C-alpha cells in the first residue's frame, strides 16, 4: 500500500509527468514515422529510421561525429530561442505563432546591418532583437487595443515580413545567386566570435558563443518568469486577465510587453544562426522558415518549462539534422522533412498525454479507495 502511494505521488509530480509524456510522444512519433517508411519502401525502413535517430553518429570517426554534433548544436540555439519565444507568450495566455515572422525580421535586420551597414556582430544581434520585438509589439498593440486575435495578426505579419525581408536583402545578395553575400568575405567582424569553442568540435568554425548565449537567455527567461515581480504579473495576466485588471495590473501594457519580449527572443534566434555564417539567406524563398514553427513544437515537447525546452529543442534539431542522411536513392528527398515533421507534430500531443495520465491515476485511486473500503467493511463484519 505504502509503495503504491509513493509511486503514485511520483507519477503525479508535474515534472515527471511532462517528462513521461514527452518521451511517449517521441516514441510514438518515431513509430509512426517508421510505419510510413515501411509503407513507402519496406526494404530500407529500418535503416532509414535508425539513420534519423543516429544523426551525426552516421559518421564512423569520432572527430567527424564531434564536428557534426557541433553543427546540430549551431542550429539548436536558434530553435531554443524560438521555443522560448512561444513559451513566454504562452505563459501569458498568448499564442505567438508569429515567432516565425519575428525570426524572419531578425534575420533581415541582422544580415542587413552586417552586410550593408558593416556593423560589428553585437550591434547586428541587437538590431535583430529590436526588429523582432517591434514586430511582436505590433501584434501586441493590435491585441490590446483593437482586440485583434494575435494568431491572425501574427500569421499575416509572417508573410508580410518574409517578402519585406526578401526585398531588403536583395540589396546585399550575391550577383549570380539568390543568396546573400557571405559574412566571412564581406564583413568578418559581424561573425559571432567562437572564443575557442569551435576547436572543441573538431574546428567546426560555426560553433560560437551563440550556443552558451542561448542557454544563458533560457536561464534568464526562467528567472524572469519564476522569480520576479514582472513574471508574477505577466503570468497572472495570462491566467486571468480580469483578475489582473481588478488588482491594478496594466493588462494592456503587459500584453504588449509580452509580445515584444517574445518577438525579441525570436529575432535574436535568427541572428544566432545567420551571424555564424552557417547559412545564407535566399532572397527568393517563398516559404516562411520552419524554425519559428518548430519552436511551437519544442515549447510543448519541453513541457512549457524553459529548462525543458533546452532538451526538446536539441532533440527536434537532432532528428531534423538526422533526416538529411536518409538514403535518397530509396526515398525521395522530402522524406527527411516529412518524418521529422511527423515526429514534431506528435510532440504537440504532450498535453493530451498528461491529461490521459491524470485521468488514469484518478480512476485507479478511486478503485483503490473502493477496495480499501470493501476490505474495511469485511473486517468490520467479521468482528
Amino acid at each position: 500500500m505504502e509503495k503504491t502511494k509513493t509511486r503514485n505521488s511520483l507519477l503525479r509530480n508535474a515534472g515527471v509527468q511532462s517528462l513521461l509524456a514527452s518521451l511517449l510522444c517521441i516514441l510514438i512519433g518515431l513509430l509512426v514515422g517508421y510505419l510510413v517508411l515501411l509503407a513507402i519502401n519496406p526494404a530500407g525502413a529500418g535503416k532509414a529510421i535508425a539513420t534519423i535517430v543516429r544523426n551525426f553518429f552516421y559518421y564512423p570517426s569520432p572527430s567527424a561525429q564531434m564536428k557534426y554534433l557541433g553543427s546540430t548544436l549551431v542550429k539548436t540555439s536558434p530553435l531554443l530561442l524560438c521555443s522560448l519565444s512561444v513559451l513566454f507568450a504562452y505563459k501569458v495566455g498568448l499564442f505567438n505563432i508569429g515567432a516565425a515572422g519575428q525570426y524572419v525580421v531578425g534575420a533581415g535586420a541582422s544580415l542587413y546591418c552586417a552586410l550593408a551597414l558593416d556593423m560589428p556582430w553585437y550591434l547586428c544581434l541587437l538590431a535583430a532583437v529590436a526588429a523582432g520585438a517591434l514586430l511582436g509589439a505590433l501584434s501586441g498593440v493590435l491585441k490590446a487595443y483593437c482586440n485583434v486575435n494575435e494568431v491572425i495578426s501574427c500569421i499575416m505579419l509572417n508573410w508580410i515580413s518574409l517578402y519585406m525581408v526578401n526585398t531588403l536583402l536583395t540589396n546585399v545578395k550575391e550577383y549570380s545567386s539568390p543568396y546573400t553575400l557571405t559574412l566571412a568575405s564581406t564583413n568578418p567582424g559581424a561573425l559571432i566570435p567562437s572564443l575557442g569553442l569551435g576547436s572543441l568540435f573538431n574546428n567546426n568554425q560555426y560553433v560560437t558563443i551563440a550556443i552558451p548565449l542561448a542557454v544563458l537567455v533560457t536561464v534568464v527567461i526562467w528567472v524572469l518568469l519564476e522569480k520576479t515581480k514582472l513574471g508574477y504579473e505577466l503570468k497572472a495576466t495570462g491566467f486571468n486577465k480580469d483578475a489582473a485588471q481588478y488588482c491594478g495590473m496594466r493588462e494592456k501594457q503587459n500584453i504588449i510587453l509580452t509580445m515584444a519580449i517574445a518577438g525579441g527572443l525570436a529575432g535574436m534566434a535568427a541572428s544566432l544562426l545567420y551571424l555564424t555564417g552557417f547559412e545564407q539567406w535566399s532572397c527568393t524563398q517563398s516559404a516562411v522558415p520552419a524554425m519559428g514553427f518548430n519552436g511551437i513544437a519544442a515549447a510543448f515537447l519541453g513541457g512549457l518549462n524553459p529548462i525543458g525546452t533546452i532538451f526538446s529543442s536539441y532533440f527536434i534539431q537532432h532528428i531534423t539534422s538526422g533526416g538529411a542522411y536518409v538514403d535518397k536513392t530509396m526515398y525521395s528527398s522530402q522524406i527527411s522533412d516529412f518524418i521529422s515533421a511527423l515526429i514534431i507534430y506528435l510532440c504537440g500531443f504532450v498535453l493530451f498525454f498528461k491529461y490521459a495520465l491524470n485521468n488514469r491515476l484518478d480512476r485507479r485511486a478511486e478503485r483503490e479507495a473502493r477496495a480499501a473500503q470493501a476490505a474495511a467493511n469485511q473486517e468490520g463484519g467479521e468482528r
Partner: protein
Amino acid sequence: MEETYAVEMLNITKRFPGIIANDNITLRLKKGEIHALLGENGAGKSTLMSVLFGLYRPEEGSIRMGGREVSIKDPNDANALGIGMVHQHFKLVECFTVLDNIIMGVEPSKYGFLQKAEAREKVVALSDKYGLRVDPDAKVEDISVGMQQRTEILKMLYRENKILIFDEPTAVLTPQEIEELMEIMRGLKAEGKSILFITHKLNEIVAVADRCTVLRKGAYMGTVDVADSSKEELSRMMVGRDVDFAVRKKARAPGQVVLEVEGVTVASKMHKNNAVKNVSFQVREGEIVCLAGIDGNGQTELVHALTGLVKPSAGSFSLRGVDMTRDSIRERSKLGLSHIPEDRHKHGLVLDYTLEQNLVLENYWKPEFQNRGFIRFKAVREYAQRLIEQYDIRSGQGPVTKARSMSGGNQQKAIVAREIDKDPELLVAVQPTRGLDVGAIEYIHRQIVAQRDQGKAVLLVSLELDEVMSLSDRILVMYEGEIVGELDPKTATVEELGLYMAGAKRKEAV
C-alpha cells in the same frame, strides 16, 4: 396497494478520490410532496442529485421507482423516467424564443417539419393551468429572470415529468417572485407532482416544504417533518451547532464623509441606455450603506465605475475629499479603496495561482514583497501564513494550495482577508456571501461589522434581503439605474423594500 413513494434513493454512497461525497444516504420522495434537501455547500446535495439525474454512478446503493429498482445511466434515462430538473444556472438558449426553448429536444414534427402550432397550444394550456405566466414568443434574452425560470419549469411540464428537482431556485428572485414561485410549487404539488427542493434558506423550507432531509459533510443527518420542526433545529442539523442568526451590531453614530458619489452616469455594455443614471450618495465613517436591488439594475456597473474597472460617462467619485474619478485602479487602491468583487472567480482570484500568490495580489508590488523586481518569497510565505491563521482559511496544502482546489467559502475568506488586511478607508463588498454556507456567512458578516465598528466606511451590494436588512445601517434601493429610495432597516419592512426593488414605489430625490 398503491406505492407511496415516487422515488427512493436507498443507501447511496458515492466516493471521489480523497472524499466520500455521499455516505450511505437514503432519500425517499413521497408522491405529491414537496421535499426539501438541506445542507451547506459541500454537504453532498449536488452529488446526490447528480446521481438521481444520471450524471454520476454511485458505488453502492440503489434507486427504486414504483417498487422496482431502476438504473439511471445518463440524463436521458432520467428524462424517460419522468425526472426533470431546473438547474441553478438556467440551461436556455438566449436567442431562441420561450416556445423554442420549451420544445427543444422533443420537437413535434411531421415529415421533418416542425409542428409549432400544436406545441404552442400545449404550452399555453400548461401555463394557464399552473399559473406560469410566460410570453411564448418572447426571446429568452429579453425576459426577466423570473420568467426564464418559469420557462424552465414549463420545459419539465411539457415533457410530462412527474418528479421535479429545483436546484436553489430562489437565489436569483425578488421577494415577490419568490412568493410567486412558492405558490407555483404548491400548485404543482396539488396536481400530484413530486418536488425535490434544494436550498439552504430555512425560511423557504418552513414556508413550502412538507418534509426535509438534511445532509452534512456527505453524511445523512435525518429526515424530519417540517411541521414538527423549527428553523433552529434544522440549522443545528445542517451546521452541527447553534447558529447565531442575528448580526450583533452596536449602535454607532456615523462620522465624516468618506465616499462622495456625485451625479454618476455609466453607459451600459448590454443595451443603448445608461446602466447608471445620475446617481449621487455618500458613505460615512462607521456606517454600512447597502445598495439593494434586483440583479441587473445598475449596481454592478456602478461598482465597476467606482473601483475603476470602467469609466463613468459623467459624474465624480471622491474618497476623503480627494477626487479619484480619473485615477487608475492601483491609485485608488493606494488611496484606501478595497473591493470584494461580485464574481470571485472572474475578478477576485487567479485560480491557477496558489493561495499565497493570491493573498498578495493587491500588494505584491510593495517593497515588503519585492526587492528590485524580485519577489521576496519568504516575506510572501510569512504574510500568507499570518492571514491563513488570522482569518481561518482552510485548504489542503496551506499557502501552496492551488486556489482552484479550495472550497468556495475558503476562496471567499481569502479574498475577504486580503481586502480587509489592506486596512482600507472604504470597503466595497459586492455580494460577499453569495453561494456560501451558513457558517461562512456568519463569519464574513462579523468581519464586515468589525470594519464598521473600527470606523471604516462600508458600501455593501447585496441581492439577499436577509443580509440587506440585518447588516446595513442605511439602505439605498436601485431600480433601472437610479436610486429610487432610501430606507432605514430598523423601520422598513421586507415588503416595502420589495416594492421599491420592483419599481412599484419610489421616493423623490434622496
